[in-house]
């Protein structure tokens, strides 16, 4: 049976609409916007944006770590419940992702504003108004809020597969709770941790809406700059160069992360 050829249309589609567009990005990144000649000027210009790159990476990295610290107990807790409760709780984790993230972020704006809900509540206690919005903290909060489910899902998928007999064996051999966690549960959840961090870091480092709404001009991220190159500044060559650098950066990060798991044979935990 020539069943393999069923993948043909798909592969052609992906070549047309995934591979070729990336080649075009490469082409734009390496050509001049006016003359269309080969140039490295767009790439060299990146150094002006180095602080923004570093800030994006820094904020996304902090958000990933916070997501891991908050997400792990949640994933572990869900994995301890019965199968029906598990399915229900898992659904509750996924559900917020289906609602427009624009509006959810806007709801956070309403809460964090200088005249927003939190500051209004605080004013009754004669505190504040606190500078909550337009800070790095607010941007991190937005990232953690929006991408936390992406951390919980892969962690849960991995924790649920841990053989309970391994935990029992560790207990029988005299480990206390902390030791069982440190020596058995945590090492076995590494693939989930890696996949979770990747799934939080990638959208967080490239976001542009969260920083526009919750941040200020001082918290501009690389996504904001790329967006403006295409939508307001009309310099697609510079935008393409930035996209290229961002993409390479992310592939390096993922490559490094996958070293921790070693076996990368089709492990996609969604």
């Amino acid at each position, binding site marked *: 049976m020539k069943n*393999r050829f*069923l993948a043909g249309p798909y592969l052609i589609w992906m070549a047309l*609409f995934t591979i070729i567009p990336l080649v075009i*990005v490469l082409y734009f990144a390496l050509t001049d916007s006016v003359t269309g000649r080969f140039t490295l000027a767009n790439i060299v210009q990146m150094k002006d944006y180095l602080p923004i790159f570093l800030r994006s990476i820094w904020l996304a990295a902090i958000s990933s770590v916070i997501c891991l610290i908050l997400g792990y107990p949640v994933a572990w807790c869900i994995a301890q419940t019965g199968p029906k409760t598990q399915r229900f709780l898992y659904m509750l984790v996924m*559900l917020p992702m289906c609602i427009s993230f624009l*509006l959810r972020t806007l*709801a956070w704006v309403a809460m964090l504003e200088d005249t927003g809900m939190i500051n209004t509540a605080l004013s009754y206690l004669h505190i504040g108004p606190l500078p909550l919005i337009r800070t790095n903290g607010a941007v991190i909060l937005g990232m953690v809020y929006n991408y*936390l489910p992406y951390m919980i899902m892969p962690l849960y998928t991995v924790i649920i597969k841990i053989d309970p007999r391994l935990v029992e064996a560790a207990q029988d051999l005299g480990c206390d709770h902390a030791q069982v966690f440190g020596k058995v549960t945590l090492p076995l959840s590494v693939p989930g941790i890696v996949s979770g961090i990747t799934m939080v870091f990638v959208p967080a480092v490239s976001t542009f809406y969260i920083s526009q709404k919750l941040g200020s001009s001082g918290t501009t991220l690389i996504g904001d700059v790329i967006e403006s190159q295409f939508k307001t500044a009309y310099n697609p060559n510079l935008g393409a160069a930035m996209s290229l650098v961002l993409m390479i950066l992310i592939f390096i990060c993922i490559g490094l992360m996958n070293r921790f798991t070693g076996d990368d044979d089709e492990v996609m935990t969604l």
Partner: protein
Amino acid sequence: MRKVSKIVTVVIFIFLYLPMIVLAVASFSKGSDIAVFRGFTFGQYKALFDDHVLLPLLLNSIIVALASSLLSTILGTAAAMGIHRMGKRARRLAMGVTNIPLTNPEIVTGVSLALLFAFIGSMLKIKNVLGLVTLLIAHITFNLPYVILSVMPKLRQMDPNLTEAALDLGCTPIQAFFKVVIHEIMPGIISGALMAFTMSLDDFVISYFVYGPTFVTLPVEIYNYTKKPLHPKIYALFTLLFIVILLIMVLMNVLQAKDDKRRLRNAPIRKKVRQ
């Protein structure tokens, strides 16, 4: 430790649903400021149903989501069948390609497709190349990996003898697919299609780069709105959408539960057949 993580879990769930509560409360407020509640009213819901801008945009979103999830489900299921049969090397390559849209930041996918469409537009000398077709292409492209990744595990779980039995009993490969295989992998197809549908319905970043003025979807319009003050009927719309998506999710859950039960019931019989 158990207690601490339980408390954390409860707090996190409240944290995750806090903005939804804010939106739902705002949808019943008389004022237009989301942060201040000015008395209870159904007025926003009434305004929503008399509205002639938002609902057509929602319809646009649904059209794109339905068409793209349907097409990507067909294309993706066929692809999964093909990839399943491939040798190890070819499979690795195909899965590598599948992972590109998943690992690439959405903004890069959006930008790269925008450049492609601009390029095609200038080649064919079409002025406004962006529109429904470009949106559909983009949505199908990012939906495909989700379909493939939810169908593949079902193909792996399936007993390969079933297909062979069907073929031995005189089915053509196509009949074998529609009579046997499709029933075995149906839960994967359905969950892939639903995932594609919801991803597509709510997609903003990629759509934002490939939409044209002739065909705008709801999330893109909300983004354009948020530069101006938002009309509170949008909160009403999303409170309703939340309920709809909740129902879809519950349905998905029930389907999955049924599938698990069926698998449990069938498992011992299959073992006997093999002996």
